[in-house]
């Protein structure tokens, strides 16, 4: 039964290595050919961001210059989501639009880092050397390009989203919790119109360094996330930007918006990842959905990262459901914070079209029949388990 406080997805801004927008993604997914950059970071393949005409969403060159890539990706995707929802430039709506951004941090100045790392150990007074070079060599505005909440700040500045602005941090879980809190606030009448999402720039050595310290990266030729598991698993990171406009049904109807899908439920939790703990969380989340979807017309879009332990456990859980599965990370790479919003975007666009896109690898079964429901998983590569149920609006 439609309800005024239903959470509807009324706009999607999605950019990745597969292109820009849901139509481009739909086409690319149905004729899937991996887009991987194997040369920029030798030995560390990444899915690169598609070429963006930045002026389209970030018209002022000064704004583009003030941002680093992760902020440009996010600000661009946010603008695309506002366009898609038909709210771009509508000052009245944007003045009461609530923003929840899932963010990590921004790029460093790699040349400055390298120069300091090279010379500091030989300096007579290493502490003084560090101070002197940070003071003279860091661009003053770089700080603002690094601060986690400044993606949201740039979206306020460039697109005028000023109802409120909150940033969540915490890898995959920041994205799952951003969506959960937005939907919960809509259901409880704590807001009507939300912009939720995030961005990730995989094409930077410091993030590769971070995950290499955890021995978590896939360093061979392209393979889908399931296929990788036979060779020890690993994450193939991808540059990704995704924002969703999520609004109450009453609000969407009142302004004549066309919804793409409904987020019928979204649950998040955590565990220490002891044996079977993540599965137990997922089972609880699934049990709460009991009877609310028709298995014959349901598929799973998995947020599996490719990192071995979590991916293997999630796959076993999904096999028990017997539903067709697609892993978004095989298509656009694993993008940490915006992964869950991006997989929700794939779910919403598939539901809007009434069918699931083609398998991305041999371990994924084709689905011939109509699609009415999608379960979207969001298991973090380290911690955090989420499950959303997306259905027709």
């Amino acid at each position, binding site marked *: 039964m439609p309800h005024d406080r239903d959470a509807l997805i009324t706009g999607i801004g999605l950019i990745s290595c597969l292109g820009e927008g849901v139509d481009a993604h739909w086409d690319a997914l149905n004729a899937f050919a991996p887009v991987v950059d194997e040369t920029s970071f*030798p030995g560390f393949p990444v899915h690169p961001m598609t070429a963006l005409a930045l002026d389209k969403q970030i018209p002022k060159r000064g704004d583009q210059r*003030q941002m680093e890539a992760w902020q440009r990706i996010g600000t661009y995707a946010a603008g695309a989501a506002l366009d898609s929802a038909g709210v771009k430039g509508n000052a009245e709506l944007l003045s009461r639009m609530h*923003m929840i951004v899932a963010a990590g*941090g921004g790029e*460093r100045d*790699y040349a400055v*880092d*390298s120069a*300091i*790392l*090279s010379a500091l*150990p030989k300096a007579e007074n290493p*502490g*003084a050397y*560090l*101070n002197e070079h*940070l*003071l003279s060599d*860091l661009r*003053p505005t770089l*700080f*603002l390009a690094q601060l*986690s*909440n*400044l993606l949201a700040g*740039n979206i*306020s*500045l460039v697109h*005028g*989203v*000023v*109802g*409120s*602005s*909150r*940033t*969540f*941090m*915490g*890898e995959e*879980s920041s994205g799952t*919790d951003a969506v*959960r809190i937005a939907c*919960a*606030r809509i*259901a*409880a009448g*704590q807001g009507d119109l939300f912009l939720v999402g995030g961005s990730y720039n995989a094409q930077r*050595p*410091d993030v590769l*360094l971070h*995950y*290499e*310290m*955890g021995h978590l990266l896939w360093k061979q030729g392209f393979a889908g996330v399931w296929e990788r598991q036979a060779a020890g698993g690993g994450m193939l990171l991808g540059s990704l930007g995704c924002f969703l406009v999520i609004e109450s049904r009453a609000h969407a109807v009142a302004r004549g918006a066309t919804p793409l899908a409904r987020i019928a439920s979204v649950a*998040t939790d*955590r565990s220490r990842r002891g044996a079977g703990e993540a599965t137990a969380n997922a089972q609880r989340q699934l049990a709460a959905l009991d009877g609310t979807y028709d298995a014959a017309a349901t598929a799973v879009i998995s947020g599996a990262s490719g990192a071995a332990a979590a991916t293997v456990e999630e796959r076993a859980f999904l096999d028990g459901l017997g539903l067709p599965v697609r892993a978004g990370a095989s298509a656009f790479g694993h993008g940490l914070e915006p992964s869950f919003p991006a997989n929700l975007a794939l779910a919403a666009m598939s539901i809007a079209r009434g069918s699931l896109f083609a398998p991305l690898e041999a371990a994924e079964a084709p689905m011939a029949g109509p699609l009415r429901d999608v379960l979207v998983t969001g298991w973090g590569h*380290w*911690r*955090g388990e989420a499950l959303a149920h997306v259905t027709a609006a």
Partner: protein
Amino acid sequence: MQDTDHLGRPIIVVTGVGVITSLGQGQDVNWRALTAGKSGIHRITRFPIDGMKTTIAGTVDFIPVPDSSAPAMSERLAELVIEEAIAESGIGQPGDFPGPLFLALPPVEMEWPQRLALAAESGANETVAYDDLLRAAGSGDHARYYERFLFSSVGENLAVRFGTKGSPIATSTACASGGTAIQLGVEAIRRGEAESALVVGTDASVNPESLIRFSLLSALSTRNEAPELASRPFAKDRDGFIMSEGAGALVLESLAHAWARGATIIGVIEGCGEAADGFHRTRSSPDGKPIIACMRNALADAGLAPEDIGYINAHGTSTPENDKMEWVGVSAVFGDRASSIPISSNKSMIGHTLTAAGAIEAIFTLLTLRHGVLPPTINYDTPDPAVPVDCVPNVARAAQVSHAISNSFGFGGQNVCVVIGAAPK
């Protein structure tokens, strides 16, 4: 007395608080120092200050932390203030807090000591590039670094230790983060998701690079010669904020839940308001509209009028810009009363605890109402005619206040205001 508010929502009360600042550990130590007008600002000894434009800070130097880094120390401060808050509240069982965790946390990234350690391991001689760091990262066991510098590890570790429920949420709205964490907790209880929530703001990120980043934005005071005199909110010769460390934790509960278990109520979170500013990355709209909106939104949420407010716990950073804009906002919201309503800045004594400020200052506001004493704004010796506030200059003042607001504003257009009420009699 009923247990729902003017909109029929659960009334949210605070039943336990914990705080650490450069003034010391615990509410009693902090409250005594704060009402005595004592400053916690001092010369930095944690790292070399050669060449620095600012050499003073409100660091917390009395809590030893092994393998120290901003997230390691922020986590340790959070643990200590949470322990204090839960002990006062008496809620739950050890390691089993009955509600969710909302954490205001500074952004996390690998720091120079770890970067230098990898560089040394790489064995590169003349120049060290990220390729060398990557090679070193892949060849050894660096799982500890990897886990430490995940954005999620502080919240995860706290959730494990205190047994909070559900996915812990770490938020950053820059210098408004503590206020945002409180608002998230209030909203969760109002939605009926939980009867209680654990809110903590923590920040221990005074290191060479973060100090220099703020310095390069000309945000910091350079009154290095007399550290305790450097933070001077609302004074005409204020010249920037003092970077500081600290943490504050609050146990939030529905009033019904607190009553049912016979808890002592410290005060009430009556409402929260927020508004984003799209004017500039670091500056407020010159018309003050978002600051005004966040205070008005908070009052509306609390069901109060400006006349009901008896005290303002200012954001009051001591930067020329912030204190002027806060006055613009306060004078618009409070009209004729703006110059007579007491508005003091804890930052004159503890400096700017950044991510933690909203939580710490909400706690100090609760204590202000509880004890009937307004903490002063110290170092107020040269009034600024452009900012004609009653900042409770230099000396604490006895005053019974029923309702107060605590403001937090941050880079990126972040504005949060929390309305705090005295415990029901």
